[in-house]
């Protein structure tokens, strides 16, 4: 009796990727164009094609794992539900004023992004809580009735409610929620205490509004997908990827759709975490380079890092944690991924003083790099990589995208080499290096900025261009090992197959560490655990819980999250939190204060996981196309090595013994470049492992 088949479907901007791992551990995939009029169409079509292609029966399908861009697109394209926000009287503009800061300095012509709920749809109700949950002004029923009457007149799909200090006393929000659900049963209602019962009114309001704004479109999409699966005779069991990296039953995700924003990149990191761990690599920096951006994330001891300082549609910035205000604040746990505007299509240019720049403008898919011959005239990173011999000068993607290397050469000569007085290959190598420098900032943002030394990590590179830039990037950061996984081009879909069913909840719990009663904290944790189990629709005993606590020194505004050991909390366990804060603070920021004296607890977090039939192994060779005859081409590796004749091989041609570079590995999904001072071998999980000599 084999376990039911699990199929993953990940929707990207252009393609929908379908992937499954068979009982023998072999990976099977399908890639087909997305169907923007109804994304569910390509998902169902792709699953049917995958089953048919491998002779599998529909009945073998147990569940579908899914990541989609419906929630993100609703925000980026401002096509979410018509939403009303109800606030405490006097504070309806909190959403529009934001935190005031703007994402760009020295920019007098800056324009703020419009609020997701315009001012006329932000209604005020007379009520007021104090910071300790005391009722300052009782809820005024008349003002509530007025608001509800207004709602009935407007054509509204969703309502968000966020009152000041509701995290300390949810009574007023609950009351309003009940009244709304009674009066408007078909409207999608989100209360701030249901989505983020934590302090800081702008972030809580914004998160609540995002949930309401994307709720109706996400719900409609998921219902449509479930229906289509059923109509096609497939299993209707659908699990959604969350931005935090866990999967969740689609029917639960429908109530908290804000949790699935940005789930695609999250799935890629989950895939890296698990594929890395399978092969024995537990400390990774993931590097995902596509057409327009490069993303990096940190995996430490097999665990990924989450953040809740996130903005949807914040644009691409070099140091996202400092420059805020360009997007919509979403304060839910999201895998900490930093992003810079350097992808294959990023445009190369010279500024007024003749300095070489890369991005953030991109030639996109159309016209694309000059070598595509689709009308692009500005050289891109891809053009430089063609000139350097890293990319095939005739065609990419296994021959499906024909290219013209001579066009790349001409564009770089005219726009870069001649003005700088360099040869064309030197100019191209310069572009490659400058692009690498930009990408280093993404890596540093998740490592050195957090007190982590990149040298302690392996670089795990995927995405179409990840393998082309990994070696230079690793060199710049003194990293000595690079992992290039199989299936790099469908990595987000692959990641879905590794994810666990997970749900995280948190609550404010503001008090000093010293003097916190263990029983009160234990009771709060247990209540959270019961709520997690309830939402997962599973008995408490079946759920594997993880407890965490957000700590800071008194007077600080930013917290550090540390794990709480399992088991009933006692006085010693609470006291140990002080030591944990001191240690984590020193590790992250380089100094410690005295947490026993000034340490504070801010929030409690509980994550509940259900064991899944998730894939725990991935075998070699299933994914490897047969090796073709070896080819060679010239590739340039800087002044140190110059132009070198380099063999071009398929992944299958790389064996377990280290092969000395230079070598280029070409596959349908991407290209990997091993420099002359590196070696490459293939491990038992089909990963290419590149080692660089210390230089």
């Amino acid at each position: 009796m084999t376990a039911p088949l699990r199929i993953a479907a990940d929707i990207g901007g252009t393609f929908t990727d379908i992937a499954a791992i068979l009982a023998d551990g072999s990976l099977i995939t399908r890639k087909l164009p997305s169907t923007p009029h109804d994304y569910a169409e390509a998902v169902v079509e792709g699953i049917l094609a995958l089953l048919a292609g491998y002779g599998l029966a529909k009945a073998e399908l147990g569940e579908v794992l899914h990541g989609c861009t419906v929630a993100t697109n609703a925000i980026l394209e401002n096509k979410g539900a018509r939403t009303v926000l109800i606030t405490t009287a006097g504070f309806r503009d909190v959403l529009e004023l934001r935190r005031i800061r703007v994402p760009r300095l020295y920019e007098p012509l800056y324009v703020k992004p419009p609020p997701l709920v315009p001012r006329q749809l932000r209604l005020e109700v007379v009520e007021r809580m104090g910071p300790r949950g005391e009722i300052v002004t009782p809820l005024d029923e008349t003002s509530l009735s007025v608001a509800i009457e207004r709602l009935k007149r407007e054509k509204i799909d969703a309502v968000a409610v966020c009152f000041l200090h509701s995290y300390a006393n949810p009574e007023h929000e609950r009351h309003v929620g009940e009244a709304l659900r009674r009066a408007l049963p078909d409207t999608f209602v989100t209360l701030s205490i249901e989505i983020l019962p934590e302090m800081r009114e702008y972030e809580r309001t914004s998160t609540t509004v995002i949930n309401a704004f994307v709720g109706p479109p996400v719900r409609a999409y998921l219902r449509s997908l479930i229906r289509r699966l059923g109509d096609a005779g497939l299993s209707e069991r659908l699990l959604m990827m969350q931005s935090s990296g866990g999967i969740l039953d689609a029917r639960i995700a429908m109530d908290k759709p804000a949790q699935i924003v940005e789930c695609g990149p999250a799935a890629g990191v989950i895939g890296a975490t698990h594929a890395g761990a399978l092969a024995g690599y537990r400390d990774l920096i993931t590097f995902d380079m596509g057409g327009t951006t490069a993303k990096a994330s940190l995996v430490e001891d097999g665990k990924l890092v989450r953040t809740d300082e996130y903005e949807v549609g914040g644009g691409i910035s070099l140091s996202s944690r400092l420059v805020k205000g360009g997007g919509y604040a979403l304060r839910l746990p999201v895998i900490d991924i930093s992003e810079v505007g350097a992808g294959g299509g990023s445009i190369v240019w010279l500024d007024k003083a003749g300095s070489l720049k890369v991005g953030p403008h991109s030639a996109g898919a159309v016209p694309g790099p000059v070598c595509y011959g689709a009308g692009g005239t500005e050289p891109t990173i891809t053009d430089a990589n063609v000139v350097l011999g890293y990319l095939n000068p005739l065609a990419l993607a296994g021959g499906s995208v024909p290219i013209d290397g001579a066009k790349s050469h001409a564009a770089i000569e005219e726009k870069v080499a001649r003005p700088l007085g360099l040869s064309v290959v030197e100019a191209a190598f310069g572009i490659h290096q400058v692009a690498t420098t930009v990408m280093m900032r993404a890596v540093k943002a998740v490592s050195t900025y957090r007190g982590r030394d990149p040298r302690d990590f392996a670089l795990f590179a995927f995405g179409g261009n990840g393998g082309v830039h990994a070696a230079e990037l690793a060199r710049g950061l003194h990293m000595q090992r690079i992992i290039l996984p199989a299936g790099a081009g469908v990595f987000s879909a692959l990641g879905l197959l590794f994810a666990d069913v997970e749900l995280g909840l948190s609550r404010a719990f503001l008090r000093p560490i010293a003097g916190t009663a263990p029983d009160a904290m234990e009771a709060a944790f247990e209540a959270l655990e019961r709520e997690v189990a309830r939402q997962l629709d599973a008995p408490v005993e079946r759920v594997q819980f993880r407890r965490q606590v957000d700590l800071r020194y008194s007077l600080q505004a930013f917290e550090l999250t540390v794990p709480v050991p399992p088991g009933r909390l006692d006085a010693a366990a609470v006291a140990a939190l002080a030591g944990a804060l001191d240690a984590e603070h020193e590790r992250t920021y380089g100094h410690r204060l005295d947490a026993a004296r000034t340490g504070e607890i801010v929030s409690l977090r509980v994550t509940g996981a259900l064991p899944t039939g998730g894939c725990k192994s991935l075998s070699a060779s299933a994914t490897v196309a047969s090796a073709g005859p070896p080819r060679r081409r010239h590739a340039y590796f800087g002044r140190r090595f110059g132009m070198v004749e380099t063999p071009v091989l398929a992944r299958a041609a790389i064996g377990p013994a280290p092969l000395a570079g230079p070598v280029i590995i070409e596959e349908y999904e991407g290209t990997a470049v091993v420099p002359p001072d590196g070696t490459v071998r293939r491990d038992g999980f089909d990963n290419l492992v590149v080692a660089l000599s210390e230089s």
Partner: protein
Amino acid sequence: MRNDIDPILLEVLKSGFDTVADEMALILMRTAHSPIVRDSMDFSTAICDEAGQTLAQGVTTPMHLGSFYDAMQFLIERYRGDVQPGDVFVGNDPYAAAGQHLPDIYIVKPIFHDARIVGWATTVAHHADVGGIVPGSNALGAVEIYQEGIRLPFLKLVEAGRDVKPLWELIALNVRVPDMVTGDLRAQIAACVAGERGYADLFRRHGPAVMLRYIDELHDYAEQLARAEISEIPDGEYRFTDHIDGLGEDPEPVIFQVCVTVAGDTISADWTGSSPQVKGGINTPLPFTKAGVYTALRSVMASDVPNCHGFTRPITVRAPAGTVVNSVHPAPTGARGITGYRVIDCMFGALAQAVPDRVAADGSGGSTLPTFGGYQSGKPFVFCETVMGTWGGTASHDGPDGVPHMGANQSNVPIEMIEANYPLRIQRYGLVQDSAGPGKYRGGLALARDYELLADDGYFGLRSDKRAFPPHGLAGGHDGRPCDSRLETAAGTRMLPVLVTEAITLRKGDVFRHVMSSGGGYGDPLERDPALVLRDVVQEKLSIAAAFHDYGVVVDPAGPSVDEVATTVARGSSRRAGTR
């Protein structure tokens, strides 16, 4: 660019410096203890070269651009031959350390490579209190610097890695909130340690010979880029005069007069004609005036000019000593921020004549700085925050509502954080309908913020801006609305002056109601697209009455919709009458 310079390595190192400066800023913010540093982000970080010239600055407070240079010259001169690894310097005095005002404390750490100083990790942060006659140390009523708090020339706070305990104790004893101040000092040191690590690593990787050559080149490159940008500004003399309302009741206006001269690839700003220094804490020493000039010029440059010292070389700033923009001992400078903001605004006023498409009409001016202090359950508290406002309209769009001044990219403090930590209640925070300066593109709306004191009694101080001289419009746009500040007490309501110089005592339940000024408009309001007027009416940012009064647009409340015919008639008669 010189022949022996590899443009690629230059770009690599420039990004490297930027990354180090940003990392310092992040660490400072995340470990800081006071709301004004951790939430408002009133601080800056920079990496300086061996000579104390800025190489890169973290993206926080533009107004601090270039303000490390003078302080560093002071420090280097004073401690020549007496700097060792592990030292950390502290200083704040405008006259004895080339600082800015006493609350802005510099923390500086030398960076060594092979036993030689190769650079400096530098930070400056606005501290919640440094002593003096009022909580928060922004006493507008101070008449000499001795009243403003503890004065620190550059001193070693840490010597060869060991705390200089007597100095820590002296500082802690002289401030009202020692935990907060020492916590922020530790945060600054942590940032410097990170900066030292990152910068020294670049030296180890590339070697000192290469680094020194490329540091020179980076300054030259920034200079070249700045000159290319200045060349695109039409030559000429552009004069502008602006005012700060003045100090206390019946204020005497403080004059700011600038003549910006563009000649080829150089630019100068001459402040001759500005008021003599005043008996009140709004004087600024010259380095801060220079920083304001740099910020405004940097803002009208299209290129991404590196924030390094070389950028300032084609720029000259002149200001007679003893004026409000170049104060001398013992002039008080505690609340000099407002003067820095006005320097920038005044520069934009002049630049609007040269590059009208690149600047906005005047915005709400300096941030409002309310300070509440007192004792709660026997423990002292000091709360101050910077309330930021709104910008003027531009040649292409409306001024945004709720943005920081160009000089200081700061945040508001969450209301829930204020109320959880201080005996205050915020009664209102939002936009004010009908307040925008009318124009083809209107200014941003005014912001209101009301505070109620919950402690039995307390002290209140206020620095605000732009009442007698509201934000100006451009190209026929109208002025923004002046600011408004009222104190409601048991005795009745009292209008407060813009710059409060005498201590105000509050009782429980007293309410301070504040409305900032709004942004000025750009272009003739009668040319505003009626659809935009209607949008503002729909969004409840403009009343139907004001739509008619300010723009000559007749809005039919049914719909609502624009009555095209009535609007044409109304606008025609307005144009003939020359009103609006």
